[in-house]
């Protein structure tokens, strides 16, 4: 038995207020489990933004279409990592695929994830890039040439019919992809929302709130990346695109805020048995992370900023600065939202009579450094993707000889 763990538990025990069941001293789902909904939320949100282009024909957002897809894929690849690291026995994780319990929302992870990864995201990216992959590989040298050939599955067909088919497939996959994205993140909400033992989690609204905050964070992330990457490449930011994305962000934040406000009012109005301990939880343990970071800084302030932008028609430089600040605040706010749900739900006792604490270590598998690494990894992967599958490269029109081959 790890003495350090036991010492931490004794330390936590001293900080318990009120009465908790003796097994509840330890907060079981740590920062890693906070990261998972955050990461899948970004995936779902980025995909929804991309779908605006293909399904709802929002032309202004075309500039970030591919970036959004690549972002979604980069984050999706890292998303299972926090889960694996958290398991007591990660070497047994194959059991979720081999022997899933169909009454368990968590077991659905394997299938929903595999579906979304393979049938939606990878397929959509493939069909989007297929033409460019072929055209690039015709003009490149080793190794990029072969990399692109392999990714294109050695496809060579550039005929009118093939390209039209690509377009149709992209649209079809996006249409399937929207409910799939809802499912990918909605089931995470259901994992929490279906736990009747925990009144902080148990709510019909939980999957919906998760989904909308996911859309908010995904759109905000794409905006953030767009505003960072383009200047790094020395290119000009398309303000129409940025304004349009921010509009959608604005609508999403309004819906998200309304839902969370509804949940809050509903709880206070019904005033069920758990309201006392939940009130203590919010005022004592979650005051900063919920009141200040999630609501004030993460939602109200960005909302106010965007309203001002819409009302007062600021100039381009000011708009860019304000957008940049807003999306960073929103990311922090949504991360805080996940924290408040996951950690907050474990800090009060199911006896409704006491509160415990969560101590996040610095090192260790479930510590802060690991979490920061997990947040940084998708960005590194995205950088690789951008190198291999450039979102904004204009492939040259094929010469007549190349078109015939």
């Amino acid at each position, binding site marked *: 038995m790890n003495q350090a763990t036991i010492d931490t538990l004794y330390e936590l025990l001293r900080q318990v207020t009120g009465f908790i069941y003796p097994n509840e001293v330890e907060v079981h789902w740590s920062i890693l489990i906070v990261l998972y909904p955050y990461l899948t939320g970004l995936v779902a949100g980025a995909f929804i933004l991309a779908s605006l282009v293909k399904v709802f024909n929002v032309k202004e957002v075309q500039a970030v279409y591919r970036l959004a897809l690549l972002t979604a894929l980069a984050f999706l690849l890292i998303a299972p990592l926090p889960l694996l690291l958290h398991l007591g026995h990660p070497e047994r994780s194959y059991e979720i695929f*081999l022997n899933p319990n169909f009454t368990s929302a968590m077991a659905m992870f394997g299938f929903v994830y595999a579906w979304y990864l*393979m049938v939606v995201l990878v*397929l959509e990216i493939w069909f989007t890039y297929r033409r460019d992959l072929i055209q690039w590989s015709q003009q490149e040298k080793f190794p990029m040439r072969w990399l692109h050939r392999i990714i294109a*599955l050695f*496809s*060579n*067909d550039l005929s009118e*019919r093939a390209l039209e088919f690509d377009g149709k497939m992209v649209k079809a996959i996006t249409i399937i992809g929207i409910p799939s994205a809802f499912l990918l993140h909605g089931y995470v909400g259901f994992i929490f929302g279906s736990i009747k033992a925990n009144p902080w989690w148990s709510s019909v609204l939980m999957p919906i709130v998760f989904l909308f905050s996911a859309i908010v964070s995904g759109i905000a992330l794409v905006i953030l990346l767009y505003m960072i990457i383009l200047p790094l490449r020395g290119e000009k930011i398309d303000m129409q695109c940025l304004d349009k994305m921010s509009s959608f962000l604005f609508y999403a934040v309004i819906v998200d805020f309304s839902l969370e406000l509804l949940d809050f009012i509903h709880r206070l109005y019904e005033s069920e048995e758990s309201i006392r301990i939940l009130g203590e939880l919010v005022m004592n343990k979650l005051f900063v992370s919920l009141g200040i970071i999630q609501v004030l800084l993460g939602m109200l302030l960005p909302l106010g900023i965007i309203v001002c932008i819409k009302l007062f028609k600021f100039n381009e430089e000011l708009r860019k600065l304000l957008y940049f600040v807003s999306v960073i605040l929103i990311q922090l706010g949504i991360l805080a939202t996940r924290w408040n749900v996951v950690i907050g739900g474990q800090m009060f006792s199911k006896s409704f009579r006491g509160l415990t604490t969560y101590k996040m270590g610095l090192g260790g598998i479930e510590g802060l450094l690991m979490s920061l690494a997990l947040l940084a990894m998708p960005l590194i992967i995205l950088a690789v993707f951008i190198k291999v599958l450039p979102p904004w490269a204009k492939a040259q029109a094929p010469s007549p000889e190349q078109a015939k081959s």
Partner: protein
Amino acid sequence: MKFLAKKPPDALVRVLLIFVVFVGGALIARSFIPAALKEKSLFIKATVDREMSKPIHYAGSEVCAACHDEYNLKKTGYHVNLSCETCHGISKTHADNPTEVKPTAPRKRDFCTLCHAYDRSRPTGFPQINPATHNPLKPCISCHNPHDPKPPNVPRECEACHGEIARTKAISPHVLLECTTCHSVPDGHKVSPRVVRAAIPSGREFCGKCHAKDSINKETPKIDIATHGERYLCWQCHYPHMPEVK
């Protein structure tokens, strides 16, 4: 879709091929996995078997009866419901190997007080003593045979089993009243407390003996017994062991 009538697009063919390879491969691989790794009923059976074969540490009292006469003595006394191992600890290894392994036998005061020290949350009627004042420093077993723990003297005070009540009364206005002033206690109560019960007074007039206006007792608070709370018994409002007015 019309295009299906013609040759399917090359891109689609390639993608489908990859899918078939993946999914088909997964299904084929699954069929090679032995049943023990994917059959739910086998897991359950294996777990149940494993659980059932875990080692037993407590032997159970009936096992002790085979060799130890104290078991029969215990059956006659107040400790009849106790398991031998409650005091003597884990004894399965001793039962399996009586000569080599011996169980413990607690002989110090601090063991008996785990159950018998006064604690206000213990149910009333459970025999409790104050370890500081009840024959301090003497081992409990010097007066009480643990297998038949009848006290050497019949408890004089009701406090021996009704500690909470006694302590409440001790700081109340009724402190000078003996328990027997209000409760008539038959002899058998101290022997079989749950069978032979003490009685409570029958009516308002009983309290009126001290608290009615015409009582001979000069120092008690007086009320008009005819009108004061006339539909109720006195103790429906006033807790007799702490008879506060407000």
